[in-house]
């Protein structure tokens, strides 16, 4: 309150004469032009992100096209023989694509229940004090760099698995899936929590007033109302897992094979991301192998782009369906 007295308020009618508050037409025009120019520059700068994504697509595609000119798409997508060093080299990426989806789905098997339960717990069951402890835990899990997860997987988890589960190698699909699951949970939890807390209070109150328990309210009313948002959360978690490089490169064992039998998690597998990361350093720029890795990158980009659009659509639908709060 005292502060106002310190302000030197201009006193009208003092020595200095103030310009009139009405602008001349010239000043008006100049102000308009400056503001317009400023806006255009701001707009142009904002468009850099658009430019970036276009450039990413353009350049990855540009480098991938030479591969498809020399190698058939069917051979690339439908065969499992990835032997870039053989003569002639073979680039059947099916095992890698399957490997990517394999670890992604197995990790989601762990991550979806944990992630959604945690989201429900945080938004439905606890007050501010526990939230303020639990939220940072999830944020920290999200913030830990992927190479640290990979380090944990190969240096701590893999020897443990080898010793206690009697597996021949600790670098296998199970290891990578477990660690990927921990990495995907924060994404799932935070997006699902947003979706669940966006559900209107009226729905909950109606359910409680009819005598539902919290479990019934949550699973019969709240979760169905937020289901699009929860599915979007799962898709975003899936994107995190499928695009993850370091953990699968370090911990999945890097054997280009489809597990046989398919449910055997203790086998080594290899993903698209790990292949790109592992082999790009050894290829000659401009060779067919180099272009093949870009083709893999393009495929990965397409997959995540599709998933992204799907999650965008679902999230905007969720916003509309729960948007009456």
């Amino acid at each position, binding site marked *: 309150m005292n502060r106002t007295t310190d302000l030197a308020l201009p006193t009208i009618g003092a020595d200095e004469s103030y310009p009139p508050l009405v602008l001349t037409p010239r000043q008006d025009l100049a*102000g308009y032009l400056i*503001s317009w120019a400023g806006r255009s520059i*701001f707009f142009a*700068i*904002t*468009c*850099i*992100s*658009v430019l*970036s*994504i276009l*450039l*990413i697509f353009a*350049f*990855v595609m540009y480098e991938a096209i030479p591969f498809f000119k020399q190698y058939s798409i069917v051979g690339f997508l439908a065969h499992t023989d990835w032997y870039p060093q053989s003569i002639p080299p073979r680039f059947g990426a099916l095992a890698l694509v399957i490997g990517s989806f394999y670890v992604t789905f197995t990790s989601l098997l762990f991550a979806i*229940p*944990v992630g959604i*339960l*945690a989201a*429900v*717990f945080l938004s439905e*069951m606890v007050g501010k004090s526990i939230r303020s402890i639990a939220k*940072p*835990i999830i*944020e920290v899990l999200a*913030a*830990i*760099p992927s*190479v*640290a997860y*990979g*380090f944990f997987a*190969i*240096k*701590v988890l893999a020897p443990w698995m080898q010793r206690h589960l*009697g597996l*021949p190698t600790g670098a296998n699909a199970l290891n990578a899936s477990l660690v990927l699951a*921990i990495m995907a949970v924060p994404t799932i939890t935070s997006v699902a929590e947003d979706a669940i807390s966006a559900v209107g209070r009226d729905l909950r109150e109606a359910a409680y007033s009819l005598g539902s*328990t*919290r*479990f019934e309210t949550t699973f019969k009313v709240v979760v169905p109302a937020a289901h699009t948002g929860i599915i979007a959360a799962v898709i*975003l978690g899936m994107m995190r897992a499928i*695009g*993850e*490089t*370091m953990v699968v490169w*370090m911990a999945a064992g890097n054997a280009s094979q489809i597990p046989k039998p398919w449910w055997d998690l203790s086998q080594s597998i290899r993903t698209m*991301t790990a292949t790109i*990361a592992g082999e*790009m*350093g050894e290829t000659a720029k401009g060779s067919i192998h180099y272009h093949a*890795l*870009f083709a893999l*990158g393009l495929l*990965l*980009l397409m997959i*995540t*782009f599709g998933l*992204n659009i799907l999650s*965008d659509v679902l999230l905007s639908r969720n916003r509309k369906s729960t948007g009456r709060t």
Partner: protein
Amino acid sequence: MRLGLRLALDRSFTMLAATAVIVLALALLVLLVPMVSRGTSAVFFRGTVEFRRMQLALYHRGKPGQINAEIDRATAARKRIYDLVDQFKQGIHTDDLKVQLRRIHRQLGQELQERGLTGQDYARLRTISTEIRDRLERALDTTDPNEVRVNLDYVLTFSINPELSSTSAQAYFKIAHQLRETMQRMDLAKRMEYASALRELEGILQELFGPRPSSQLPPLLRQQYGATRWDQAQVLLHKLLYKEQWVQQDPDRPLIRVETPRKTLFAGTSLEELFDYVPRHIEEMLLPRLTVYWQFFVDDSLESHTFGGVGPELLGTILITITAMVIIIPLGIISAAYLSESSADWLPIRIIRMCLNTLAGVPSVVFGLFGLAFFVLTILPALGFGARPSILAAGLTLAVLALPVMIRASEEAIRAVPQSYKEAALALGAGPVRTFLTVTLPAAMPGILTGIILSLSRIAGETAPVLFTGAVAMGPVARSILQPTRTLAYGSYDMAVGDRIADLSPHNQYGMVVILVLLILLLNALAIMLRARASNKLRGHA
């Protein structure tokens, strides 16, 4: 009953949900505790005299007088070990002795010539010398104790020969005496076994105490020093005392580790004493002391991270991060300002938002591919720089990666500024630009700072995008941003899977990754705190 069931279901569901959060908390603990506890030992540990010797020799750190005194004390304590080993060796390493015998024989011949002996005397003594030499060699070769005794007794009959007194031949008899002593205490049939066991033992001793003071310096740096750390010394001591073997019990099952006390391998020999002496006197021989190796943050690493620290990696990470931040701070704030002030329904804005979402979803390794194809191979050569990975290219790639993070956080911060602030500014006659610069931006600054810190932590931790654009596992410290650099993230990867040498110094492996993790956790803690304060402040004013 039905109600009871419903309530029980409700209760158990609550428990299950709580378990999910507890599982996450446990996962965080399991992840961080072993890494941090092992990683901090790269800086805080009990350093031995070998560590101080290394620091003095390589970096001129410490007081030379004091350290040399310590080295002398340790060397004195270690002398007993080498004496024991040398004594034992005599019965084992017969090749050395045979060379010695031949030398004595040659020397004796020269001596006899110098004395002026010629003709028959010379020939006779020369024959005796040959005879002694052959007998001793036979004693050395055989594994039959009787034959050894017979040969040695035969040789020793010459020891009273006056013609041979005060000549080199006395060396023969000395060897014979020692041999007799050693042979009495050793099972000769086990000689080959002993030889290989001794070789192993000497290897461990060298790892523990460094090369013997008298011997030549080995070429590799890590062989020039013994155990520099007390924890390392403990492991080596265990290795010294127990021999580890992998035994197959069942062809289908994995091998089983069996440890046998090494003492039993040398049972009955003079070397047995060593296995009591070393554990009892190890502290005197290594002089461990609590050490804070803060130079870990600045030192370059030596020989695949055997010694040294993570200085260049830390520097590289900081340089790449700064390069990226210089680009995305202005870009991010301007974009966020524009997005937050524009109508959400305008088509270009919707397109921009969609692109931002897509950008945020691009896998990090694809950013690496893009950075390689665009920055490294296209833009930098077009600007006249070399087409090779560099800090600049890595920084640009990471800037594109972190742009969505920055824009989202800044936009959130700008949106959180109460409308009344802007209205007040506009009412006072400020234009939109001035309103933004003087009112909205300062009010949103803490939130924007949060965004900056979060993108910082994202950039510092990324590995895949810099794999092809600017990171190297080894190499000189970068002198300009047009050169590639080592980074903490790539270094962590490389040390974890790169080679077996790094496995020999786990403290450095864990140290590298822990510095990265702690750096990022610190940044995030800062961001969380700032955000809490910013939102409290704005809420208070609104």
